[in-house]
């Protein structure tokens, strides 16, 4: 544990523990801390407003203010209230308040001296001459108390924080202002999160509009919008005072610190804008729901699964049989439509042949193997390549080849008819644009049939090498849609062309 930390915390809390302590106020006794805090706060706001009504008489009337507000003014008397104010201004012996704290550096108990109010010297000087009154301001310790209690109040108090920052900047307390800006940023971020949570809750159940949170929010709608306006002004002022600080007091103030501060202020402004954005988007969503989907709010409020279905019904009285649980849940589900799996796909993998279609010489390697070796159906590449070779020869020479009735001799036509695999390749070529491989390295494995055909052709006929790297496209020439008729085969008049280099 870090004990030096302890001393600091100790010192921060001492004034709080001593606030209003040691006074005997009769009937006001149970309320003294509360009244004391309210006086500190009121003075704090007076300071923010640069009001100088902070003399002892003013403090007394502030105390009465608080008593009226709390509805306990009947309990106070002129003496007890004055005693209370006295007790805030000075300790029992008329001097500073004293508390012990543990100082880790010296490892001893030390005495901490402090006051809740200090004399506001600037204001007092003129006031003494005019009215003879002393004007008090909050001491650093009292400020600390305000800030500490401030942390707890998380609602829309941002403007005050901004005023505070403004004040710090005005007095050139840059470090202090920086601290406050950071605190402000983290608080605004927290608020953004809260708002986003509310927005999500709203999406999930629009009736959250009527929840405690939603209702409070609505009542504050105008307040919130005013606040966004006020913030804009505050930021303007802060920016202006920062600029003035940078110009006027270059020597006094650490320029680097000032730069950091203005960066943080800028960040803070952006975070505020973000918050405003979220808040406004929630209003938009709420309005949209109310306007376009009023039915979401019909029906008894508070109807929900937990209370009505689960706790009052199922868990308590049970259901008629387990199957009724299914009835209860079934409605949550969408109809289930099975993916249609074509029968052809189901059989596809099994569509293999048992006829060995390997070339004869490879068969010899196997010797007298009596068993029928399993082999998948394979395109008879030798025949197919032989049939396609003339097509590509013409293509290489003339730049295009058209499948016409008289393109081949009757003998070749018959061979085409007998080799459906070769014919199929026309259809496959027709699908896409094909680029002939630049290199001959690919052996055709793992490629589609068109590429394998090209690879085979190029391997057989070196003169076709001119085709390498070219793009081929297969079209059906316009105007000649009449199919080509060969004995036993009818085929579209495809034209194979080289489209580009």
């Amino acid at each position, binding site marked *: 544990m870090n004990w030096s930390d302890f001393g600091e915390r100790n010192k921060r809390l001492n004034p709080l523990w001593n606030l209003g302590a040691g006074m005997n106020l009769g009937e006001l006794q149970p309320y003294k801390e509360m009244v004391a805090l309210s006086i500190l706060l009121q003075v704090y706001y007076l300071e923010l407003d640069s009001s100088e009504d902070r003399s002892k008489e003013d403090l007394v009337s502030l105390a009465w203010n608080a008593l009226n507000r709390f509805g306990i003014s009947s309990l106070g008397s002129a003496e007890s209230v004055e005693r209370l104010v006295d007790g805030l201004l000075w300790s029992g012996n008329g001097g500073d308040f004293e508390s012990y704290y543990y100082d880790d550096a010296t490892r001893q108990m030390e005495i901490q001296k402090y006051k809740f109010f200090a004399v506001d010297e600037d204001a007092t000087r003129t006031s003494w001459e005019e009215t003879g009154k002393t004007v008090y301001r909050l001491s650093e310790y009292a400020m600390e108390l305000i800030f500490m209690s401030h942390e707890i109040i998380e609602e829309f108090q941002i403007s005050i924080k901004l005023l505070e920052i403004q004040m710090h900047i005005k007095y050139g307390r840059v470090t202090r202002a920086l601290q406050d800006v950071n605190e402000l940023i983290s608080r605004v971020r927290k608020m953004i999160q809260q708002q986003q949570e509310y927005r999500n809750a709203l999406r999930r159940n629009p009736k959250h509009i009527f929840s405690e949170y939603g209702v409070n929010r609505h009542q504050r709608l105008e307040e919130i919008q005013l606040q966004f306006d006020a913030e804009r002004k505050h930021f303007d002022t802060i920016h202006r005072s920062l600029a003035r600080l940078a110009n006027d007091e270059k020597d006094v103030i650490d320029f680097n610190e000032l730069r950091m501060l203005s960066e943080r202020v800028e960040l803070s402004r952006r975070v505020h804008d973000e918050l405003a954005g979220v808040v406004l988007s929630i209003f938009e969503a709420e309005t949209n729901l109310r306007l376009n989907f009023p039915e979401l709010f019909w029906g008894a409020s508070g109807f*929900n699964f937990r209370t009505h279905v689960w706790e009052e019904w199922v868990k308590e009285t049970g259901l008629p049989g387990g199957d009724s649980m299914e009835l209860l849940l079934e409605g949550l589900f969408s109809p289930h439509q099975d993916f249609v799996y074509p029968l052809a796909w189901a059989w596809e993998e099994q569509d293999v042949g048992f006829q060995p279609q390997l070339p004869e010489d490879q068969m010899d390697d196997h010797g007298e193997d009596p068993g029928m070796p399993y082999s998948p159906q394979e395109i008879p590449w030798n025949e197919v390549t032989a049939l396609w070779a003339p097509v590509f020869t013409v293509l290489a020479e003339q730049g295009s080849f058209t499948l016409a009735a008289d393109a081949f001799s009757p003998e070749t036509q018959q061979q085409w008819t007998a080799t459906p695999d070769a014919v199929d390749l026309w259809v496959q070529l027709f699908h896409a644009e094909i680029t002939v491989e630049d290199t001959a390295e690919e052996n055709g494995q793992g490629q589609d049939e068109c590429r394998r055909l090209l690879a085979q052709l190029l391997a057989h006929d070196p003169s076709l090498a001119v085709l390498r790297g070219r793009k081929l496209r297969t079209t059906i020439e316009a105007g000649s849609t009449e199919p080509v008729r060969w004995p036993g085969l009818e085929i579209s008049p495809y034209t194979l062309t080289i489209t580009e280099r």
Partner: protein
Amino acid sequence: MSYSLEQLQQASKLFFDLLRRKVISLNDPAAAECLQDAGAYDALQYVAKEGGCRVMNSGQRLHLLVNPIGSVFATNFTQLKNKYSRIERKAQLHTINVIILIFLAEMDQDESHFKPGQDSMSYLQLADQVSAVLQAWYNLDGEGRFSKQWQLDIQAMYKVWTSLYMQTKSQEESDLLSRGSGSRIGLIHEGMKLLEEEHLVFISEQEKRIFPRDELYERMRYLYHDVDRYKELKTLIEQTLAEKAGAADAQN
């Protein structure tokens, strides 16, 4: 009301689109077009009704849901038994139903108690709650009250649940959720997977938590927040009780 051919076309197009996609955002052109035309939207409801379904407009999305009774469509829920060969006995299936019910009850709470950030559930939490509920029912059943009302073997459900082992925390962390078929977590996972496949929740394997999606809230809102629909559901379930009683009388 009679619909024009165009409206019918639009409606059936959207219906089959919904059948395929289940949930369609209102911003989707297909949905937006149909929603603009009140007649077409009406026709869509009609087409859905004839298929034993309902079209639900949540304000953000269109959902296609089946009716608990009388739908021509199967759902992931009705196919549960087919999907998981592990679910062998009815008591197991019923336990899964209880798990889902408890999860839903945790997710959809009274809106006056606005609890932001408390909207996911860990497997262990769920397991504890299931244990508590089954234990409570089991105790009540000692007086014979529940068996009568439920006409269902609380004892069997209790037995199924207690015979499953509870993984220790370290096992929990090392194990994948889906593993451990003999564990409570495994059974919970089975039930939650059902919701996940329906795109109603997100299951985080790392955190072992179930996060509800907006779609779940939209559907629960539609099904259980509406008084009329709630009553409809209640009579439906009471009817099954009456039918069962009738069947039992006939037997005797």
